[in-house]
């Protein structure tokens, strides 16, 4: 079989994913609205005292980002699984890990990047001091791809299950714990004027590790779900 070059297949897949995302753009807004609503609930729940909000801001924003990401993960592979597209992709001879990576990249651009872009708004609502804003954006920019990469493993494992969405959250939240700890610590340290490069460095290391390892686990999970 004249197997297509990996690069061409990768870009063809990305282009298709963007086209699909654009056609379904109303659906993409849902997790983002959810993000905004969740953050709004905190001042309503704990009181609007500026000091308190500023204190819990990094954690609240990051947790909201986790929740919003998990919401969007269930549909990562579901549509392709149900209409037979995934089957054909597995049989195409292309590296399944590469296909998984392409889907994950598309997912981040469409679901994770908007979170990064919305973060200044969330920072303002949670009264995050200015010293923390840049680091918040940085931590989200490095961290949300990791959320997508690890989340893809959960998405692939649960795609063949009827109500995979709930199980997905249970599976990935423990895996998100280190990222949550590092990111919130980085932002809090920046606000307090303490060094934060260590945390950021570890997060970058985590991003590189996930980029190289997670697609293979996702590929194995996809093959399993199709069997």
């Amino acid at each position: 079989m004249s197997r297509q070059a990996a690069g061409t297949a990768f870009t063809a897949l990305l282009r298709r994913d963007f086209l699909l995302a654009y056609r379904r753009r109303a659906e993409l807004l849902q997790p983002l609205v959810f993000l905004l609503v969740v953050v709004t609930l905190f001042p309503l729940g704990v009181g609007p005292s500026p000091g308190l909000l500023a204190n819990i801001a990094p954690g609240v924003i990051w947790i909201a980002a986790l929740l919003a990401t998990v919401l969007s993960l269930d549909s990562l592979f579901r549509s392709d699984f149900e209409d037979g597209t995934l089957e054909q992709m597995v049989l195409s001879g292309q590296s399944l890990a590469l296909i998984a990576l392409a889907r994950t990249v598309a997912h981040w651009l469409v679901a994770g990047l908007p979170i990064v872009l919305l973060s200044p708004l969330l920072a303002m609502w949670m009264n995050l001091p200015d010293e923390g804003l840049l680091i918040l954006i940085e931590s989200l920019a490095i961290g949300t791809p990791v959320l997508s990469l690890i989340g893809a493993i959960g998405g692939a494992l649960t795609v063949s299950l009827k109500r995979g969405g709930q199980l997905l959250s249970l599976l990935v939240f423990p895996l998100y714990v280190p990222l949550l700890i590092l990111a919130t610590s980085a932002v809090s340290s920046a606000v307090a004027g303490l060094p934060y490069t260590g945390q950021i460095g570890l997060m970058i290391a985590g991003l590189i590790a996930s980029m190289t390892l997670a697609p293979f686990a996702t590929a194995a999970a996809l093959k399993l779900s199709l069997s």
Partner: protein
Amino acid sequence: MNPIYLFFHKTGSPPWFYNFSGKLIPWLWAGFFLLTGYGLYLGLLVAPADYQQGESVRIMYVHVPAAWMSMMIYGLMAIWGFIALVWRIRIMEVLIISSAPIGAAFTIIALVTGSLWGRPTWGTYWVWDARLTSELVLLFLYFGVIALYNSYDEPRKAARAASLMSIVGAVNLPIIHFSVVWWNTLHQGSSIGTSGSSIHPSMLWPLLYMAIAFKLYYGANLLSRARVRLLKQDHRKRWVKDLLSKETS
């Protein structure tokens, strides 16, 4: 033929495993009861009380080995999971699935005993101590694997999914543990543990006996569960029918 291949082929055979484990189990139970008895005797009566915490430190002799077991079992599940995925050996799948509830139980024991340990010292039943928090996240990892297994209809596919999740979880486990420990130092949290830097030998021995005792318990419980599962899976096969007719005759 390669002796290693033969070894795996033999141990992978359900009837052989069933017979062999049947002979092993009574010894494991005997060892468990003896070592637990001796270990608890040493720990509860012979070993010294802690300088600061008094008698309550004795709960360590159950808490610490339980925590060790909770991590060891998850590690074993991941190793067996790898073997099961690569070579599709059914026995491995059975062992993984039978281990998960035992591991979760040890995690819960570690959490409960840890909580009781903290009560006299800190006045509350829960503190976000590094080890307790780590164990809690581990418990969620166990629940995840068990829930994943139960969500799939076909048993072998379910076992493979559980194997993959165990591997992913095990790879992340050290990272989670270290990040939680670091988080704990960051926030100067309370901790549950013995005062003093090193453990006195008279405290070390009961700890080790209990650790081995728990391993024997795990072995006995695991093999019993695995045997039952094998019987259920193979209930149509010849070896099970022969076994049943032998037992009833």
